[in-house]
């Protein structure tokens, strides 16, 4: 009698039944708990909104002051070039101190100064326009500087070309950005955003919810049933994997229809790599909660080891190649880095197998590692 009941607990069908019961329970909680919906649905929506519309790395309508210390046809032409540009909002001034004043008050982010001797210099082919940039935001400053210099040199070049009597100047710089022709920052922000959202759902949310079960003692009661640790973990992974896939679908839709990011690779590769990364994040979340068993701590650790690196070190906001060597080494162990690389490749370049295959192998390896660690670390033990 006892023997038969024992085998009954071990049979596959009763295992499936227990997992199904846990998944059902988790899904119900997920739908009822406002905090899950907040992190799982509202946060991604908010992130899409903030990153998609608020944070754009394209610079438009930069307020600048144009100081014309000297009026001439040439100078006026240059000024007109700035005034007509969509990138700048110009204020015309005649003296430098006034411009400095505006700079100090941060009413303008840059000053283009055309000196007294501009026309004369132009005649000798060594005309100079001075470009001053507000350096409080270095990134922004670099962009403004680039635009302003571009505008000045273009105008000068055109001028010279006219003088030479031909349409073709001595040098024509042909600037082309591959994979992102319009230099639209959404193209690389949106894939990065997907990395962030997958990390949030997988690691942070799961770590929090599992730690809550430890904290509230619900696991203590569940432990003393025929349920196995693996079944408890699967009961958590399956519903949150589902939630992650929904989040992913929303992001892909937003990328296509809201931001018009092209998808040059195949959807299948995108789905496979995202699901693998989701498993990495879930494994991290479960591992963190098993190690801390405390919601506050789990939340802190999940943010520090998963969310912040996904934002700062994945190559999403800052280019990995321009990081110091030590930090570059750190990024090598970050799953988010490989996922970000995968997404950027799939969205913007296409199915470049020489990048995709190694990255997929690494992400799959990490998923296996984290999930196994979570399985080992979660024990039916207290105290």
């Amino acid at each position: 009698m006892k023997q038969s009941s024992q085998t009954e607990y071990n049979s596959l069908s009763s295992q499936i039944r227990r997992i199904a019961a846990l998944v059902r329970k988790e899904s119900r909680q997920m739908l009822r708990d406002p905090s899950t919906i907040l992190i799982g649905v509202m946060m991604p929506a908010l992130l899409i909104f903030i990153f998609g519309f608020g944070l754009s790395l394209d610079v438009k309508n930069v307020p600048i002051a144009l100081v014309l210390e000297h009026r001439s046809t040439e100078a006026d032409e240059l000024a007109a070039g700035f005034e007509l540009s969509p990138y700048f909002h110009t204020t015309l001034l005649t003296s430098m101190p006034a411009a400095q004043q505006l700079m100090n008050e941060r009413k303008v982010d840059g000053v283009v100064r055309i000196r007294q001797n501009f026309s004369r210099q132009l005649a000798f082919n060594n005309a100079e326009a001075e470009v001053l940039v507000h350096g409080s935001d270095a990134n922004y400053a670099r962009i403004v500087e680039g635009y302003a210099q571009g505008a000045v040199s273009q105008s000068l070049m055109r001028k010279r070309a006219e003088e030479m009597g031909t349409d073709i100047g001595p040098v024509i710089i042909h600037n082309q950005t591959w994979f992102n022709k319009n230099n639209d920052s959404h193209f690389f922000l949106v894939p990065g955003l997907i990395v962030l959202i997958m990390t949030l759902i997988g690691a942070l949310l799961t770590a929090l919810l599992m730690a809550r079960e430890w904290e509230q003692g619900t696991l203590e009661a569940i432990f003393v049933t025929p349920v196995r640790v693996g079944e408890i973990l699967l009961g958590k992974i399956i519903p949150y994997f589902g939630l992650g896939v929904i989040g992913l679908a929303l992001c892909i839709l937003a990328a296509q229809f809201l931001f018009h990011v092209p998808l040059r690779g195949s959807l299948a590769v995108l789905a496979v790599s995202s699901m693998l990364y989701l498993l990495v994040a879930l494994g991290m979340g479960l591992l963190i909660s098993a190690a801390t068993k405390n919601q506050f701590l789990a939340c802190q650790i999940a943010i520090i080891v998963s969310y912040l690196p996904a934002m700062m070190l994945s190559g999403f906001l800052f280019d990995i190649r321009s990081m110091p060597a030590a930090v570059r080494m750190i990024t090598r162990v970050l799953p988010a880095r490989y996922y970000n690389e995968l997404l950027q490749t799939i969205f913007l370049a296409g199915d470049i197998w020489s990048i995709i295959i190694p990255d997929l192998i690494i992400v799959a390896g990490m998923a296996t590692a984290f999930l196994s660690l979570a399985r080992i670390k979660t024990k039916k033990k207290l105290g």
Partner: protein
Amino acid sequence: MKTAETDKELAISGTSLCKAFRRSSGDTVHALDHVSLAIQHGTLTALVGPDGAGKTTMLRMVAGLITPDAGKLAVLGINVTDDPQQIQSRISYMPQKFGLYEDLSVQENLDLYADLHGVTSEAKNLRYAQLMDMTNLAPFMGRLAGRLSGGMKQKLGLACTLVRSPELLLLDEPTVGVDPLSRRELWEIILRLVKDENLTVLMSTAYLDEAERCNHAVVLNQGKVLVQSPPSGVRELADDRVFLVAPHAGQPARSLQAQCFDDAGIVDAVPEGGLVRFVLGSGNINGGGSNATPGPLPSLLSGLAVKPVPARFEDGFMLLLHHQGDKAEPVSVGALGKNVPVDKGHREVVIEVTDLVKKFGLFTAVDHVSFKVCRGEIFGLLGPNGAGKTTTFRMLCGLLAATAGSLRVAGEDLRVARATARQRIGYVAQKFALYGQLSVLENLEFFASAYGLRGRRKRDRIEWALQHFELSQLAKLPSEQLPGGYKQRLAMAAALLHEPEILFLDEPTSGADPLARREFWRRITAFAEQGVTVIVTTHFMEEAEYCDHALIQDAGRLLAQGTPAEIRLLAYSRDGHRPSMEDAFIAIVEQSRTKAATATKDAA
């Protein structure tokens, strides 16, 4: 010598079990210290002992959730270290923080456990019907578990462990924080299962009267087994030592009780129906009460009518702990300062509540309640879970505005002068509401400043608190690391720093062990004698005996009011014997509920 054969017949058989934990402060706590126990199939066993005795550790060990450091433990004939999963599959366990999912409904919680235990759907239907019949949860199947009252949550927790008939049921303090009615219902369920299904139950409890109803009792103290026997074995220790004494005319029972309690020759004393019940000590109770003779009656009782009464489990238990050197020490309260002892002739009313009503939307939490409390009185607010006690409390403290009615506290109308009234009251919340990371001293300093104490007065009051609550030794310890009873003391000390005239205590003894509860009441009676008015709620009905007046509330309505003796009289008529406070309480509440039920039936 036991053979393996007899071991198999035992539900639980433990030999020399040890378990030590390391505290964050570095010292080691021996939660279990060479504990051996044997529990037969089909018996109901109580695990009793003061806080920190090792009860929860023992239960978790049996459930395979804690590995013993040393010793051997077999549950259902299986060694716990070999195959904990097999044990976990066959037993049921209800932890202290019962594992209900508060955002799932009653039905969903039950289904989850039924599925985890692999109960087939036919078996489930049959079992559910049976469980609903026992727990009366049927009307609440769709309700979220988090919205159930405390008693119903416990019943659901128990039902979840019973979705199938387990071979062993472990319950960790299933009746803590539960009102007497729900407690009695829980007990009916457990007793019925033991009888009908020959269930084996091991439960820990802080209620010693519950131990008396078990087949077997294991008394633990500081990780060691003191006694393991039928409850009568513990009870018999106190035979011929228990007496009832009537106080002098005009003397409140609790002041005689306090004197008895402080007397070296007396082990334990409690007020009971206007009399004082006490347990006489002696030099030696070694080897069971029979060979030690009780000491002489203390001189303070000379000239009073003393009559012997049969001993109870609790008396034997107190005697056992006393022998271990654990007696709640005599409490010195010191002068409270501006409070003057009560002038018995002149009874000044300090709290006056008339027609108090509180509505939350359509729900009436407090329904036209009126009462008066005089200076220096101890006033008890009794009622089942959800009766409106905490709501009444919050209104009295000015934390919640009343919907209708008048409230005068310390001469101030609370509807217009909440802030001034608040200066004169102290409030100890149900949960420990001090800062865990701050030390005892830092907590006291913070609360002193919060009450506006400064300079010399602040130093004096903190000194007073440390001294009279015996916290000086622990002043530097973070308050979260204090043992249970000391946390309670610190909370009370903090509430008394500004020398309030009125002290509000919301379920101060919930979950406390008998020793801590005795000591707590000793302090309270001492404060009352100095003119502090105390308003208290409790689920321990025998504690109502310490009160001068008490009221019983249910569903927001006032059911009975008077001295404890008067309230007991209300239940006299039921049968011949003297009802206990608990009997009276249950009778009064049930009577009113039946009346309400017939009234609604008639209306329909």
